């Protein structure tokens, strides 16, 4: 394939209002650009960068510097826009993420955790009760207090729509386990998105996030309905469900206490019969469980591969296959071991693809190992081995696609951000003019960008290779389940026996 030299991805401009250096990172898509120096809103569709709304506000800086690249679950994104939104009783932040080949997604920071949001190109089908939605085969129930009005309270960076402070949408949320499905609606359109929680530290590390910044205060209460912070709503719903369960438990206990007025012997007989019946059921369950375990066999190593990840190099991909799964439901466990990891981590993105249907199942892993020494002596953290599992994979022939990349952890990392300081420094160097500079001709912003995004620039020494061993097992996670099931069955009859005795006041 003949390939032209890479085109510059960043365009350097000056704010027509304050003259500050600004960058356009999604030229052609960006519609509104909010200057990071003065807060003026600029029309990016106008070649002259017309000022839509002038401002002289001193802007706070988001936790993640705009322009930062980060790899989340194996996919590289760049933070290009930042907005804060609020509902009646809470605020949260949203970063607009961009990748020229993938378009847009969102990273949400509710002050406690990060979430990743994917925009959907279709409408999730309505569930049977119309109060729920079905997405990718899972039932998403309407979230309690999951309907509220969200208002933009702060905005900076570039956006593909005419974003403005005060912009409002009505949000409806649905949830399944830790996942969220939400629709945002205004007078013109209704968009759907899917949200997954990120592990603590995942986004912070990927995007070199600074400490949390306080969100702008929520707007005055209006008639926006049962308004709540987006993720706060999810948490509140969970708390409410817990409270409801607790109430039911108390109620049950109360009614049990006032129930029996029969003779003691009759009660004892009833209790005995119940316990015997439960032991019988438990016995049958145990036999079924053991039989299933016997038929499944022990975990089996299906495939093993050793690969090398270039430290701070580009993401690499390896395909392990074919994996033949003869059963209608098989658990797959993928183990990655990188014993030579030191103050670095490896992101592993697994995708199990059915050769016939191309249906795929995703999982994510990370192996990490850090060490150092401080006033308390030397310390180590993390594990150089990692395991990810897929539950209940159907019969068929599969390929396991593994995207992996290794990253050096720099404790005192101060990456060049899109801040003015670094841009001015670089332009100073540029002005002095060095003909030998291979990057001569690039603007200061492009230099900053290059340095930021390609640490392995042509002049850097070749990347260190980290060997990683990837093992794929069949049926492995079954054994932890087996143990849990075994324990549950064994403990159930004595528990019932005890509860029953307590309830009936037997001693």
């Amino acid at each position, binding site marked *: 394939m003949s390939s032209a030299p890479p*085109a510059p991805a960043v365009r350097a401009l000056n704010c027509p209002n304050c003259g500050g250096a600004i960058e356009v990172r999604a030229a*052609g898509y960006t519609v509104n650009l909010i200057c990071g120096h003065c807060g003026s809103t600029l029309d990016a*569709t106008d*070649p002259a960068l017309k000022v839509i709304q002038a401002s002289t506000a001193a802007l706070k800086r988001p936790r993640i510097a705009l322009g930062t690249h980060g790899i989340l679950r194996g996919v590289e994104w760049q933070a290009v826009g930042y907005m804060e939104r609020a509902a009646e009783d809470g605020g949260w932040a949203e970063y607009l993420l961009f*990748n*020229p080949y993938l378009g*847009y997604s969102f990273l949400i920071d509710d002050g406690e955790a990060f979430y990743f949001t994917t925009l959907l*190109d279709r409408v999730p089908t309505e569930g049977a009760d119309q109060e729920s939605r079905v997405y990718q085969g899972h039932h998403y129930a309407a979230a309690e207090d999951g309907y509220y009005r969200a208002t933009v309270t702060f905005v900076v960076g570039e956006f593909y*729509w005419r974003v403005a402070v005060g912009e409002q949408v009505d949000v409806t949320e649905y949830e399944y386990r830790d996942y969220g499905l939400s629709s945002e609606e205004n007078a013109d359109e209704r968009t759907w998105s899917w949200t997954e929680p990120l592990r603590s530290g995942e986004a912070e590390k990927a995007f070199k996030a600074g400490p949390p910044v306080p969100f702008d205060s929520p707007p005055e209460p209006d008639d926006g309905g049962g308004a709540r912070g987006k993720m706060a709503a999810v948490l509140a719903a969970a708390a409410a469900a817990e409270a409801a369960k607790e109430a039911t438990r108390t109620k049950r206990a109360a009614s049990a206490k006032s129930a029996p007025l029969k003779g003691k012997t009759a009660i004892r007989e009833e209790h005995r019969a119940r316990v015997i019946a439960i032991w019988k059921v438990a016995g049958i369950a145990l036999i079924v469980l053991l039989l299933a375990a016997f038929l499944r066999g022990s975990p089996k190593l299906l495939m093993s591969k050793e690969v090398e990840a270039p430290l701070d190099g580009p993401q690499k991909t390896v395909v392990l296959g074919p994996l033949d799964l003869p059963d209608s439901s098989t658990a797959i466990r993928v183990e990655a071991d990188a014993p030579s990891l030191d103050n670095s981590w490896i992101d592993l993105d697994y995708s199990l693809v059915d050769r016939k249907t191309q249906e795929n199942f995703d999982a994510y892993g990370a192996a990490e190992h850090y060490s150092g020494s401080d006033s308390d002596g030397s310390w180590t953290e993390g594990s150089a081995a990692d395991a990810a599992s897929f539950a209940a994979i159907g019969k068929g022939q599969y390929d396991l696609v593994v995207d992996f990349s290794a990253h050096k952890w720099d404790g005192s990392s101060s990456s060049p951000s899109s801040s003015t300081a670094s841009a001015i420094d670089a332009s100073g160097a540029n002005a002095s003019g060095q003909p030998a500079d291979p990057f001569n001709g690039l603007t200061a912003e492009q230099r900053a960008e290059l340095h930021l995004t390609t640490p392995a620039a042509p002049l850097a020494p070749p990347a260190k290779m980290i060997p990683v061993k990837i093992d794929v097992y069949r049926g492995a996670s079954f054994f932890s389940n087996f143990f849990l099931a075994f324990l549950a069955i064994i403990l159930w009859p004595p528990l019932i026996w005890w509860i029953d005795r307590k309830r009936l006041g037997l001693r």
Partner: protein
Amino acid sequence: VLTANCPNCGAEIVFRTIGLPVKVCDFCHSTVVRSGDTLTIAGQAAEVPDDVSPLQIGTRGKDGGQSFELIGRVRWRWTDGAWSEWLMLFDDGTTGWLGEAMGRYMLLREAPLEPASAAAKTLAEGGQPAIGTLEQIGGTQYTISDVKRVSCIASEGELPYRAPAGLEAVSVDLMRDDGGCASIQLESGTDAPEAYAGRYVTLADIAATNLRAFEGWAMPKFAA
């Protein structure tokens, strides 16, 4: 394939398919219109402004079993944004449009409007169809999701029609709940709207290759 020389600058110009009468010269940006063996210059096309679209003339991809190559582009703008329509030439000689807006892609092929189409009638009378109304295109039902007045900013490559900068049109977007989408366009000064129907796709879905490379960005694995 038909090779000729640009009547304006003399550079070689290539018509990939006999079916397309317009070619924007790669060198001088003259719009060259072919009629039989005669080439005429129909003004100058504006150059497409720099952007970070991963697509380019020459990008290849697959739709089902058929391969295609992008051979032309028209860039449109409206009050709140801009988007590109890339002309796809399939291996069997047919064409389609790959719409690119807000980082999303719509793969569309020409499809017939119903003879009694309400939207076509409204457009032909100079009106704008209402958002939310249903419309049948190629036997499939869509909902009108957006109607806007648009104007052409620029064009390049081979095209089925002349697209000078400033060309005005009304563009109607339609959607389905299942990822299906469609578009109806009426060029100003005409009264026969054309309809296109298809679906949302990702670059991975269409196994796009020969994409543009950008500094600081890794090429996705399907395109590498």
